């Protein structure tokens, strides 16, 4: 509405009661305080992470796998080294599921002499379930038979190997979660070691700057130029098989990324006014580093560490595949995968279970670290 002439107001404006046109006074006028309580950075980040369904699902998956890795080897009723040569390559048999025809401990054996299946020394009583196919093979009649492999091997009733057994009759379920334990342990140790070395190295370079920084940065750069696989293989050869060896080999160049990140953060924050003012007030170096600068780098470091975990799990499997894994009979996901791979077409379940587990673990860690990165991104602060 435009009032062309202030002295000739339209009726509705003329009618406004006079008290409404009085000053509202100081009561209504205020420098508004922030309505909400301040939320700390990590609480805010965590709140956003919790809203992210994919991240939460990944976190739960990871926690479940960790729990299984701790519990299963203890309560499965087998140990990871327990061998039984009469029970080699037993197929998976899981109580409950067996009635549905999945994981029921059966296997189709191909190209058997037809006469042999009625021979109880070859095929014990009740082990033959069904003749799948009958055909002429050369002079004899051959059959493919579906057998209850547990009975065929003379395994007593009531014995279950949920994920089957391997070439030495060892229980795969137990070995798989024992292996998960080892793989996670390797990942955790290498990530923590890299984090510690990287943060110290990066802090020194970033805080002192100048010549020290130049030397340290150049050194790291040269080291980083070395092909990762070559370095890891070389050091694995030097250290020999074992958990500690793998952790060390993964540390040789693994810390460089963390160091670079820390150094960059130092450069970003050490010039900030609040750090300069603390310094002019005589705050000692160590306190400046730990109280005023490092806390700013924690967010990116957590994200980075989280991304490094699946990387380490992958590297362990990779080393196992090329024969530089941990010492047998100790299992790891990589060891199980690579030994399963060699009999993939005959006994696919030996590959299936570790493959599914490593896939779930890698996807979950990647998703979680994506979620963490988004949640900790200061650009998203305050968003729902």
């Amino acid at each position, binding site marked *: 509405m435009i009032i062309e002439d202030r002295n000739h107001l339209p009726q509705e404006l003329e009618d406004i009661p006079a008290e409404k046109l009085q000053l509202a006074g100081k009561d209504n006028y205020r420098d508004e305080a922030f309505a909400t309580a301040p939320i700390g950075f990590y609480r805010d980040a965590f709140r956003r992470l919790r809203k992210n369904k994919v991240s939460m699902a990944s976190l739960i998956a990871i926690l479940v796998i960790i729990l299984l890795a701790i519990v299963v080897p203890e309560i499965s009723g087998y140990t990871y080294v327990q061998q039984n040569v009469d029970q080699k390559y037993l197929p998976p048999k899981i109580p409950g599921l067996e009635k549905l025809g999945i994981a029921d401990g059966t296997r189709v054996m191909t190209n058997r002499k037809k006469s042999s299946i009625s021979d109880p020394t070859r095929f014990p009583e009740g082990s033959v379930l069904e003749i799948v196919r009958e055909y002429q093979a050369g002079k004899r009649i051959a059959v493919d038979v579906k057998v209850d492999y547990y009975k065929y091997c003379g395994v007593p009733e009531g014995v279950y190997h949920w994920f089957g057994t391997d070439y030495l009759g060892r229980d795969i379920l137990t070995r798989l979660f024992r292996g998960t334990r080892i793989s996670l342990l390797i990942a955790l140790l290498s990530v923590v070691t890299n984090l510690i070395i990287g943060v110290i190295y990066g802090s020194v370079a970033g805080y002192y700057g100048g010549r020290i920084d130049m030397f340290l940065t150049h050194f790291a750069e*040269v080291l980083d*130029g*070395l*092909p*990762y*696989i*070559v*370095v890891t*293989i*070389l*050091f694995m*050869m*030097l250290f020999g098989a074992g958990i500690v060896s793998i952790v060390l080999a993964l540390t040789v160049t693994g810390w460089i990324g963390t160091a670079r990140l820390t150094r960059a953060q130092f450069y970003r924050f050490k010039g900030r006014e609040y750090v300069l003012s603390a310094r002019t007030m005589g705050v000692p170096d160590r306190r400046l580093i730990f109280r005023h600068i490092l806390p700013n780098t924690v967010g990116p470091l957590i994200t980075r560490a989280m991304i490094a975990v*699946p990387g380490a799990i*992958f590297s362990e*499997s*990779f080393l196992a*595949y*090329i*024969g*530089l894994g941990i010492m047998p009979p100790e299992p790891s996901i990589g060891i199980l*995968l*690579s030994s399963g*791979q060699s009999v*993939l*077409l005959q006994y*696919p379940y030996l*590959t299936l279970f570790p*493959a599914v587990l*490593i*896939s779930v673990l*890698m*996807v979950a*860690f*990647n*998703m979680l670290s*994506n979620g963490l990165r988004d949640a900790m991104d200061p650009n998203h602060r305050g968003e729902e």
Partner: protein
Amino acid sequence: MLKYILGRIGAMLLTIFLVMTLSFWIIRLMPMTIFENPEVSPEVQYKLEERMHLHEPKIVQYYYFLEGIILKGDFGTSVKLRPGMDVFDIIMVRIQPTMVLNFFSLLVSIPLGILAGTVAALRRNTWLDHVISFAIVIFISVPSFVFASLLQYCLTFLWPVFPTLYNAQAPNVWQAFRSMILPITALSLGPIATIARYLRGELIETLSSEYMLLARTKGLTQNEATWSHAFRNSMVPIANTIIPMITGIMGGSLVIEKLFSVPGEGGLLVDSIMAGDHFLTVALLIFYSLISLITILVVDISYGIIDPRIRIGGGK
């Protein structure tokens, strides 16, 4: 620009030298005998060892080692796997399948990754983007050897579309290539996803950049602006992912070669490590370093050609 290229080459030579040095000292520090063969009499063995300078001080051996490689291309002789054979010759025989595998993976990954990433970014927040983004997470996370097993089991055993193993005696090129399709696929899924993820993020960022807006305010259509500003600019930092990707492909190919019995350097490396044939191992490691460093050099230089900020120097 010349200065930039010379700098890159210098860095590469330094790295190769470091790899050689590291390899030498690590092998010599290992608590195993380098040369041992029960069928050879001690006298002959001593002579052989002498010929390989094994009785001289380590530092002199190091000198011979470097001199041999740099001046004569002599990487020594195999002592376990193919006793007496020249390591260099062993490598050269098996070079072709490895190069084919790695080269084709790279050749397939880059365009497919770019395509997937571009489609996802331009159709952002549609079902197509969600499907691609989901596939990206799966392919980035799951290791190539798991895919290899899956492909091998499904496509060569359940539905035998492809041969299970590499066919070295294939009657024609197509047959040989067909046996390479699965290994190449297994090796390429991760890199495709890596590029797609990076390009998607980069493109979304440039699409919302100020210079895109400026390009539109000066009268370009959205498509023109997307092509000549957003797309070109997003391609530049792709080099950042291609370098680690190359290393990834080479590492993956070690395992994949073994899984599909490809008679390449990967299988050879695994065998030589297991047999303790150290001269062969070292030569192979240097070979792998050289290949990956040369590829990185090529990427670096093309990066410099594309990005004026590097070519001209200065600026950020």
